[in-house]
């Protein structure tokens, strides 16, 4: 066992200890894009928000779309790891950390957009409740303040949720390295030894975190949906928005996770640990969410159409047959028409298939957010004040750069931390643990075979 363990450890630590030129090229490339994005933001702050395509009456557009989109992506981690951790599904083990990392980074990026989209970003801290010389506190009736609290809680939670199970692995790296790296990992591993007491506390803590983080995750995207449903805007003011957004968030989250895993698998040669079966299982989840999404969209559309309320119908037509129809139907194709068959058939539910489906879903879900925001704002009650929106370069550049930022953060993370939890895999590999579910057992054997083949 121990040499199998050693090989496992070596495989998983290799990316940390050896660095290829390709890595630096990638970092430089992504870094350049991110820098451009930040520069663009400064440029926009300097000249004024008017550089965007935002206009009367469409006061929210690309930036808020990105906000919702990234917060949605962030639901990958918590769902996968927390739920699977609670039900103790064994196959989760290699997946959890990639997922939680996505959560944290997506949240960081998403949380930036409410600031980027402010007219006076330098005053964003006025949302924070603190005793101040203005003698005025934030308005707790404002969904934006709810956002602030929800995102704070969620971000803190997920960072810790990601960090705690990392400690033993960091200690592992500490013991495997020398010099300044040794010292750095020594600090971040908080002097972890691995006494039975520490192990027990850690496991318990993770259990509690898993229980706590789930409702927070749900609340976060519900509150994001409240940003819209609280306002009397046709197409926004709907009770379905909470669950609708949560489902959409998980949907896009899983898609993002699948793509991330596929990339890691190829670039870090983790074929032995990330298995077709993982993609199979995530693919099934994605399929379920796709159906759920379709169900929500149908329910929402039907209600509007049947109700036939003037203002609502204006938005309905704009998206169904009007100026936004091309985008709308692209969304439907990307979120349902393509993913459904691919994921429904076991034959096509391969790694490649899952990646294709997930990519479509990411596009589709971004469009969905855009189509929820812009057409409604462009078709409010008084037709005189209707308007249409075109993005301007600043918005496009900043949007692109956020995807680069996500990739960059992920690359660096995979470079500094074992992207797959070493100790959890070891536990999983431990023969003494009788597998709970049939699926899990196949899974374990699969891993075993994989490791003892050569």
């Amino acid at each position, binding site marked *: 066992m121990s040499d199998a363990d050693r090989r496992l*450890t070596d495989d998983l630590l290799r990316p940390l200890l050896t660095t290829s030129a390709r890595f630096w090229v990638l970092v430089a490339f992504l870094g350049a894009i991110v820098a451009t994005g930040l520069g663009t933001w400064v440029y926009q702050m300097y000249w004024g928000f008017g550089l965007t395509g935002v206009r009367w009456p469409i006061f929210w557009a690309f930036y808020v779309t990105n906000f919702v989109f990234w917060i949605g992506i962030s639901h990958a981690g918590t769902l996968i790891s927390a739920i699977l951790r609670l039900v103790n599904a064994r196959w989760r083990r290699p997946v959890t950390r990639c997922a939680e990392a996505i959560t944290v980074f997506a949240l960081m990026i998403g949380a930036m957009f409410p600031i980027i989209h402010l007219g006076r970003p330098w005053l964003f801290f006025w949302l924070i409740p603190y005793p101040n010389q203005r003698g005025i*506190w934030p308005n707790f009736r404002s969904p934006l303040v709810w956002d602030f609290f929800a995102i704070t809680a969620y971000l803190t939670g997920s960072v810790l949720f990601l960090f705690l199970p990392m*400690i033993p692995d960091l200690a592992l790296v500490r013991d495997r390295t020398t010099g300044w790296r040794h010292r750095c990992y020594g600090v971040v591993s908080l002097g972890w030894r691995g006494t039975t007491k*520490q192990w*027990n506390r850690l496991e318990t*803590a993770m259990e509690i975190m898993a229980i*706590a983080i789930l409702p927070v995750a749900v609340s976060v995207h519900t509150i994001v949906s409240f940003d819209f449903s609280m306002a009397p805007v046709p197409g926004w003011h709907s009770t379905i928005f909470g669950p609708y957004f949560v489902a959409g968030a998980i949907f896009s989250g899983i898609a993002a996770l699948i793509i991330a895993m596929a990339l890691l698998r190829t670039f870090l040669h983790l074929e032995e640990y990330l298995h077709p079966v993982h993609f199979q299982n995530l693919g099934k989840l994605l399929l379920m969410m796709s159906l759920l999404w379709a169900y929500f969209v149908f329910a929402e559309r039907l209600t509007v159409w049947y109700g036939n309320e003037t203002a609502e119908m204006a938005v309905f037509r704009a998206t169904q047959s009007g100026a936004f129809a091309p985008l709308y139907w692209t969304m439907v194709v990307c979120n349902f028409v393509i993913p459904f068959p691919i994921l429904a058939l076991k034959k096509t539910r391969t790694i490649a298939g899952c990646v294709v489906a997930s990519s479509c879903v990411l596009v589709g879900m971004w469009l969905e957010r855009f189509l929820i925001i812009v057409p409604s704002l462009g078709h409010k009650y008084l037709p005189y004040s209707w308007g249409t929106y075109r993005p301007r370069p600043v918005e496009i550049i900043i949007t692109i750069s956020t995807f680069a930022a996500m990739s960059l953060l992920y690359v660096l993370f995979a470079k500094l931390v074992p992207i797959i939890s070493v100790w959890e895999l070891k536990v999983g590999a431990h023969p*003494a*643990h009788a597998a709970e579910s049939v699926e899990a057992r196949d899974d374990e054997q699969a891993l075993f075979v994989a490791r003892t083949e050569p």
Partner: protein
Amino acid sequence: MSAVYALYADPESAQAAVDRLRAAGVADREITVISSEPFESHRFGSRDKATWMFWLAGTGGAVGLAFAYWLTQMTERAWPLPTGGMRIVATWPNLIIMFEVTMLFAVLSTVATLLVTAQMPRRRPKLYDLAVSDGRILVGLDNPTAPLDALERALTVHGGQLKTLS
């Protein structure tokens, strides 16, 4: 000050060593077992389970709830500004704030408990061996009070070599 320990390849032998130490009259809490993975299924691994962590988390949550309640009430009354015909202290929105802060405090208190009870962070501990990260299991004692030979007999079975730190 000194420490005595031995390294074992597998949990079974570690368990045996622990048993022999107990037999040698070493108190349970003096025995330290260090491994690179948890061994819940072994007796030495299932010592001092911390069930009370849930209660601490709950307490943290309660504190958070109270704090959020105070924060919302106080600030809304501090400068009562009517908006949208809503009441100054608007319960529905405040519930959201209260929920989020409750969860936040619960999480934080959990982590705090973890760090305190697991004695983290701390500088590099005395009783440790790099071999642990290779999958060896360390069984040993800090500042042994029992006679060394007794401990040696207890630890040098199942291929455990005695090591001492001083």
